[in-house]
């Protein structure tokens, strides 16, 4: 529908995303859709109070266990207004960080695919929460966010609408955006 430019600008644009590899992966997965089944994992250990530490290492994908060179750790706690020690961000802030990182990675990948050179990408996020929910004060108030607002500041070699389209496409293909906007079954077992 739009006049298409040739593929050549892709070579010059470098956002550090290997789009060719990603497109290649999509093509091979078309042949072996089973290999697209991934399992992501995290383990978490209680330290003290509301302070905990998660370890993130191996995952499963492409039909095999995938190991990493190191295990990452992420800590979480609660701030002093919750009578906690504030050793680390709260889990809900980590959720915001996860959403921001996922959308930002998507912006880089989509921009690369569309031949748009990025100069800077900054996302600021804010989420509303009525803590009457988590405190059990009012059953009609949900525990989670009432709404999340994401604002992107992007400098790139593209028109305003093209940049908006990159951000919109990034949401469309984002795992964390999907996890947050759609329900997911959660199964918790003990021992």
């Amino acid at each position, binding site marked *: *529908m*739009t*006049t*298409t430019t040739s*593929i050549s600008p892709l070579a010059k644009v470098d956002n550090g995303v290997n789009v060719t590899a990603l497109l290649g992966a999509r093509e091979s997965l078309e042949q072996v*859709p089973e290999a697209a089944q991934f399992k992501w994992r995290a383990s978490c250990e209680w330290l003290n109070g509301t302070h905990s530490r998660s370890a993130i290492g191996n995952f499963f994908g492409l039909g095999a266990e995938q190991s990493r060179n190191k295990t990452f750790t992420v800590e979480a706690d609660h701030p002093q207004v919750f009578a906690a020690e504030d050793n680390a961000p709260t889990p809900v802030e980590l959720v915001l960080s996860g959403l921001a990182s996922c959308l930002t990675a998507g912006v880089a990948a989509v921009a690369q695919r569309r031949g748009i050179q990025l100069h800077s990408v900054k996302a600021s996020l804010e989420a509303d929460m009525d803590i009457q929910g988590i405190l059990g004060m009012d059953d009609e108030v949900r525990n989670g966010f009432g*709404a999340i607002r994401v604002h992107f500041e992007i400098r790139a070699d593209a028109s305003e*609408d093209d940049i*908006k*389209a990159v951000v*919109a*496409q990034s*949401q*469309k293909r984002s795992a964390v*955006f*999907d996890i*947050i*906007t*759609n*329900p997911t079954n959660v199964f918790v077992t003990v021992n």
Partner: protein
Amino acid sequence: MRFATTIIIGAGQSGLAMSRHLTARSIDHVVLERGEVANSWRTERWDSLRLLTPNWQSRLPGYAYTGDDPDGFMTMPEVVRFLQRYAALSPAPIVTGARVTRVRQEDGGYQLSTSQGPWRCRKLVIASGACNLASIPSLSAGLPGKVASLTPLQYRNPSLLPDGGVMIVGASASGIQLAREIHAAGRRVVLSVGEHVRLPRTYRGRDIQWWMDAIGAMDVRYDSMVEDIERARRLPSLQLIGTPERVTVDLNSLCKAGVELVGRLVGLCDGKAQFSGSLANHCALADLKMNRLLASIDDWVNANGLTRQFPAPHRFEPTDVGSETRLSLDLIDAGIGSVIWATGYRPDYSWLDVPVLDRKGRIRHDGGIVAAPGMYVMGLQFMRRRKSSFIDGAGDDAADLAAHLSQNLNRAAA
């Protein structure tokens, strides 16, 4: 057992256009039709439906609209008469009331079981339509028993709906048209909106279909695309309606009228519907895509030096979904009496006993040339061109595929 060199399944626009081209090439053929000419148009459409393309655009090989309202939109009885006249004029060798129940490969050709006995052929053209079945998401199984479940193929008009409010799932052409008329009939309407393609009915004094035709968008070929053709083939239908008043129906106008917009339906559990929080982004994507099309129209006007022939360019209001979109709805409490699944259509290949379907049940083809010797398909979305699934697209596709088919026959004969 009867024999024809080529059998065409289906006497709609695609089958009739193909028949016309085969006749022109003196290729012996029959058209097997399960009902009457234009059967789907006759029996599987709601009462108020009109074509989404203007009358002048109903063009078939050797035939076109010649009435006094070229910019109007045909009602379904008018479409049926239009195709009946074409069938009679051609004249197409049609066997009506012959439902194909099975097709299998045999001796370098195909054997067909039909409600009027067996047929054999060397070449087979599947022109049985792209919208035989409604695609309904599997989560529909969670609908409470008290709420009626129907598809646009069953819907006729608001008065035949069960009492109560109506939740319409899907906001493409079918969904927005049904939302508009059911709400106008005084019902509460909740419209669940996922990915959609927003278009104005008219722009700069012309119908949007006129523009898409003029700038060559409808003629874009499947093998000349830089973007992913499979994605283009899965694109939802254009958010358009054909009315004598040439109105634009979009989410803004529906919302203003009082239709409640919610995000994509993502859960049905204990009588409660859950909607995605992605509505704002789906609307942003659709607005941006519409503006890209309008920009390419403006570019075309400028490039052709026609600026003075048309009113000045402008842009439409962005879709305003507000910030208070509900994420769930208790269907029983809200008095919803029926849900209409306007979630797309797909062809029915249950009778096709030849291994040509992919893992999603779609027929594997290269621009209509199916992955089985001497088999062709027609009328699928973006099959050879963007217009392949339009009445106006049947002619060019039929010309190409008839040429391929004929060459194929000659090679076998040589």
